[in-house]
């Protein structure tokens, strides 16, 4: 007791454990201790549409590995008896009796007025489809021979789910093979433009000054070109005597060369603000080289944003390839992409008489929508602390 009669100020000398006051529930603890990427994953999972689109994309990219097995026919098989055959429908019931998936056999007749081939169904000729079977032989990734397919046409029958083209080739099989080129062109292209964007944007943002000014001007020039005419001009430059594979890489590089500007801008503006932070100065004082500061300390801070915006710019590349190939400036047969397939649907007769040749546009739309929604979800999830 001191003289005013108050209790003396008391401080416990025991070590203080904050957790004894603030009890965390197990969920809270899990949340606070989770890494950034884990938080992003949780947030992405809540975005239902993005997850569905992600699964669609994963399935499509997975199918690229096994195109030969999934396609019912070989890419180049010509069915000369079935030129411009319309899509065949798959039935399950015959005369009210369940049989399992089957198609009807078909006859051939020529409509002399329209010079159009008709293939009327023989309603009594039931041809069950075969599954996990051997059919057309193929070179699996050009490595070894095989003839195993998920679905095969019936013995002595045909199975054209999406019809055939002017050489009697199965459209569904060609779409399946086309995915290989069309989907990879977006990924390879974005990898190239990602590298360009990070390096150039990083240099501009970190060094500032004349480096920044040069990169900025370059971006401005490239952005003030309308993309497609420039793509057209550049692909017209590719030598005619290049092999289709070289052309494929040439087109990819051309698509990527004009695409890095958006990413470079994003990297630059982020770096400009981040390089003033204390942790950056600290790293500099400790003698870290610029490449280490950019790569180790600055980039990880907004990598998630970059990945999200890269995802959003893949569709433009896929559409670009499709448009170029459609115009005959892009990939050339025998390389098969969705754009090359659509090249066949170039005139109005096709729309009127053989509309099934436009089917390759369905996967194009599907993939582009999926990339857009998935990218949107990624972008929302990219900042999990908000």
């Amino acid at each position, binding site marked *: 007791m001191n003289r005013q009669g108050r209790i003396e100020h008391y401080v416990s000398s025991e070590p203080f454990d904050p957790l004894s006051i603030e009890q965390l529930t197990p969920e809270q603890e899990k949340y606070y201790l989770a890494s950034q990427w884990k938080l992003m994953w949780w947030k992405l999972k809540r975005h239902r549409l993005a997850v569905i689109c992600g699964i669609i994309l994963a399935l499509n990219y997975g199918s690229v590995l096994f195109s030969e097995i999934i396609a019912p026919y070989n890419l180049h098989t010509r069915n000369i008896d079935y030129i411009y055959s319309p899509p065949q429908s798959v039935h399950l019931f015959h005369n009210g009796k369940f049989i399992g998936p089957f198609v009807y056999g078909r006859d051939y007749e020529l409509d002399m007025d329209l010079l159009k081939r008709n293939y009327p169904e023989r309603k009594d000729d039931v041809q069950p489809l075969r599954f996990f079977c051997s059919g057309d032989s193929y070179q699996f990734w050009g490595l070894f021979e095989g003839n195993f397919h998920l679905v095969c046409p019936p013995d002595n029958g045909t199975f054209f789910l999406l019809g055939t083209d002017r050489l009697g080739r199965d459209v569904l099989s060609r779409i399946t093979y086309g995915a290989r080129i069309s989907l990879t062109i977006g990924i390879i292209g974005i990898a190239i433009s990602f590298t360009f964007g990070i390096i150039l944007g990083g240099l501009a943002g970190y060094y500032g000054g004349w480096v920044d000014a040069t990169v900025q001007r370059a971006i401005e020039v490239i952005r003030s070109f*309308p993309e*497609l005419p420039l793509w*057209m001009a550049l692909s017209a430059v590719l030598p005619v005597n290049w092999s289709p594979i070289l052309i494929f890489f040439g087109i990819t590089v051309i698509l990527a060369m004009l695409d890095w500007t958006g990413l470079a801008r994003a990297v630059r503006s982020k770096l400009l603000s981040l390089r003033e932070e204390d942790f950056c100065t600290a790293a500099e004082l400790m003698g870290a080289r610029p490449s280490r500061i950019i790569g180790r300390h600055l980039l990880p801070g907004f990598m998630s944003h970059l990945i999200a915006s890269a995802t959003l710019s893949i569709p433009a590349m896929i559409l670009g390839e499709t448009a170029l190939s459609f115009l005959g400036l892009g990939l050339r047969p025998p390389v098969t992409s969705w754009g090359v397939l659509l090249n066949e649907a170039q005139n109005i007769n096709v729309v009127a008489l053989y509309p099934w040749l436009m089917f390759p*546009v369905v996967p194009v739309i599907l993939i*582009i929508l999926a990339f857009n929604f998935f990218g949107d979800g990624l972008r929302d999830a990219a900042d999990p602390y908000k």
Partner: protein
Amino acid sequence: MLEYILRRVLTMIPTLLVISLLVFVIIQLPPGDYLESHIAELQSQGESVDEQKIAFLREEYGLDRPFHEQYFFWLIGMLQGDFGYSFEYDLPVADVVGDKLFLTVMISVLTIIFTWMIAFPIGIYSATHQYSWGDYGLSFLGFLGLATPNFLLALVMLYLANVHFGTSIGGLMAPEYIDAPWSLDKLISVLEHLWIPVVVIGTSGTAGMIRRLRANLLDELQKQYVVTGRAKGLPPGKLLRKYPLRIALNFFVADIGNLLPTVISGAEIVAVVMSLPTTGPILLAALQSQDMYLAGSFLMFLAVLTVFGVLVSDISLALLDPRIRLQGDLTK
């Protein structure tokens, strides 16, 4: 303000110079030149070659000179209004380009107006009714337009227009007007044909615009002044019109810089499919046959068109927004 415009125009000059150099490099990249392949083609057909004319053209356009001299000839010629000679058409480029460029500009402007008319109400609706079914439905529709390749949409629309309205396929006007001088009937015929390309090209830009307008308006709607206005009892419609919409409008004008390259790109490919008498088909043919001056001039025109479009949008933005006018700096 004048100072801002002046500075903006001056910074355009180096950009255009670099663009012209880039264009020239691109059209020079393929090995050989048009005259060589032309001579080879004529000889293989057993026709005689007009040596004098070839020599004259070679001399006139300095095709045998080093690269940088050719570039300067081209550049200086362009500044004087001489865009070079189209070997394929056997005409000066200016005569080939003629009103095709005008039609390209017309289609682009109409498309932008169309895009605005569609995107503006949808964007506002989506932002004010965030996460409603209408928002999802309209956004999805926009995305569908973005995801459908232009050229295919053009084909289908051509077919449908032909079946349902009986409009003749392709082109920008009925056949009898093609060589006729401009008149009211011709204009009506052009407008009748024009809506298909405008709608087709417009669909690809609309989705992006809706999304950006929605995002911007959403940002504004959360701000303090909107809450204050609402608390003071302003009717929602008036509140929206008086404050956040005006700020979002700025960005709408600025967005023309993003929209224009898309529109011009779209216009090119749609023009090829619908065989419109715009720059598209001729550019494609010129690129394929190495008609270098024609291709180069077209590329240059399109780039200049884009640069000018961005300039116009920047200036109108500066007129609208005092922050930009006074700081003289664009916040993009």
